[in-house]
């Protein structure tokens, strides 16, 4: 006696979109704490912007014929986008993987670990977009940008978010505890911020440092953000988008493989 194969009750689900359940889950949780979360995302870059922008700005005077705060603001879009995606895909995702066992619960439903990783990747990218949008609104408020052209930076913030979310998820997949993430920040993220033309123009750096910077995603992000918000010349816009895409896709692919290995033991 054998059981006939049971039809799967899919409720008309479009299969490749299963990962969106994870995006929805995270969005619903975020919505509960939206104000706190946005404040957090906004506060740090705002403090940098005002503190450095007016404080250091008074000493520096102008960069490329504009106030320092204007130069810095475009960098802050990238900085807050990067941080927002990184924190979400490191600390929050690790909590869901290891501490709360949220992913384990999801895998008991008809989802796979790939669905989970791709969902988390998209979600951290979206959070970066929210942060980028908030900073852009502040720039409008300060009168640093005007018109609709700067809105073109928003898709870039999503892409930057996906690049950093992919890289961070690789770390999360390898992490045994939160302490591990300190290395990532100290050894990669913080030096990269200083190498990538966030606080000062890239051309201040020695050639070799500039070459290293152009291998990293943040320099390309800053170049695109300045170009799109302030109209600065972008040396290689297509290459920049390509590099960000490469980090994003390579990151999520590697993370998916690592998480599959970690969870399907």
């Amino acid at each position, binding site marked *: 006696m054998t059981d006939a194969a049971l039809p799967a009750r899919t409720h008309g689900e479009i299969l490749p979109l299963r990962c969106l359940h994870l995006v929805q889950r995270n969005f619903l949780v975020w919505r509960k704490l939206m104000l706190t979360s946005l404040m957090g995302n906004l506060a740090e870059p705002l403090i940098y912007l005002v503190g450095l922008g007016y404080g250091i700005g008074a000493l520096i005077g102008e960069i490329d014929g504009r106030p320092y705060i204007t130069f810095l603001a475009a960098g802050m879009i990238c900085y807050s986008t990067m941080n927002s995606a990184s924190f979400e895909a490191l600390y929050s995702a690790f909590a869901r993987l290891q501490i709360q066992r949220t992913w384990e619960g999801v895998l*008991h439903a008809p989802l796979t670990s790939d669905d989970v990783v791709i969902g988390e990747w998209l979600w951290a990218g979206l959070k970066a977009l929210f942060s980028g949008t908030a900073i852009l609104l502040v720039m409008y408020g300060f009168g640093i940008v005007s018109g609709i052209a700067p809105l073109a930076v928003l898709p870039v913030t999503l892409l930057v978010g996906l690049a950093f979310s992919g890289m961070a998820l690789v770390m999360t997949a390898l992490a045994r505890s939160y302490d591990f993430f300190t290395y990532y920040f100290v050894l990669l993220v913080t030096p990269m911020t200083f190498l990538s033309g966030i606080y000062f123009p890239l051309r201040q750096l020695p050639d070799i440092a500039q070459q290293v910077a152009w291998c990293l995603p943040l320099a390309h992000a800053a170049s695109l953000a300045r170009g799109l918000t302030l109209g600065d010349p972008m040396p290689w816009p297509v290459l920049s988008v390509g590099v960000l895409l490469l980090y994003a896709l390579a990151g999520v692919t590697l993370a998916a493989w690592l998480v599959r290995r970690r969870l*399907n033991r």
Partner: protein
Amino acid sequence: MLDVRRLVKSYGGRRVVDGVSFRVERGECFGLLGPNGAGKTTTLRCCLGLTALDAGEIRLGGLPVPEAAREARYRVGVVPQFDNLDPDFTVTENLVMYARYFGIPAREARARAPLLLEYAGLGDRAEARIDSLSGGMKRRLTLARALVNDPDVLFLDEPTTGLDPQARHLIWDALRRLAKQGKTLILTTHFMDEAERLCDRLSVMDAGRIIAMDTPRRLIESLIEPIVLEIYGEGVAGWAQSHARALVERVEVSGETAFCYTRAPDELLQAVAREPALRVLRRAANLEDVFIKLTGRDIRD
């Protein structure tokens, strides 16, 4: 409903599951019994397609696992050993979100949530936060969550471990009602009373192998003498060696107690009566005796 054949799974060169085969028919409650580390949880994980098999074949609801495990899980509910409720959501939100993972529309899930909560005895806790629930409530909510997709099969990994007696009885009642509705239940446990009460059929696992499989009653009848005399008191170990062994079929000494297994207890009872230092408890053999006989008295960690 579930057909497992010659399942093998190793971790780091150690065979955690070593050639396990069993079938569970629709509507049956099947128990996997065994000491810690016997391979019960790994067997369940393999059945759900959460881990790759080294060898063997599994069909769940007629679908091959792990190849079509994801599709098979549409008809499956899982109560894991450790609660993994979503602490960022309320009780109701947990049910609704979990239903979304099955592709069930939120409206339908919200309509069904009160029924499930009523069933789990959490009707007045619909808006509660997860961290405000007791251990027993969390287990019942986990059980309710496993039912959001109206599954045909439920996998329960040690469903009452860590619960107080009242909470255990509530879970047992809920599981019996599910069995009555025709759900197939597959549970692991190391509580003999739980296995004896709930399971139509069970298998005893040890060191990755199934060493006995039958109904609880037949396991007791076929594997062990029907009467147990537990003898306590000063010097019982030596006395058991010198006197009891000759009078009954089997004697096991553990600490200050001698367990004497027999069909004819009278002679031993008379012998004990002549020893003022010894006390005796006479009882029927139960599943725990079978379990100890099969898996030994050594501690497993």
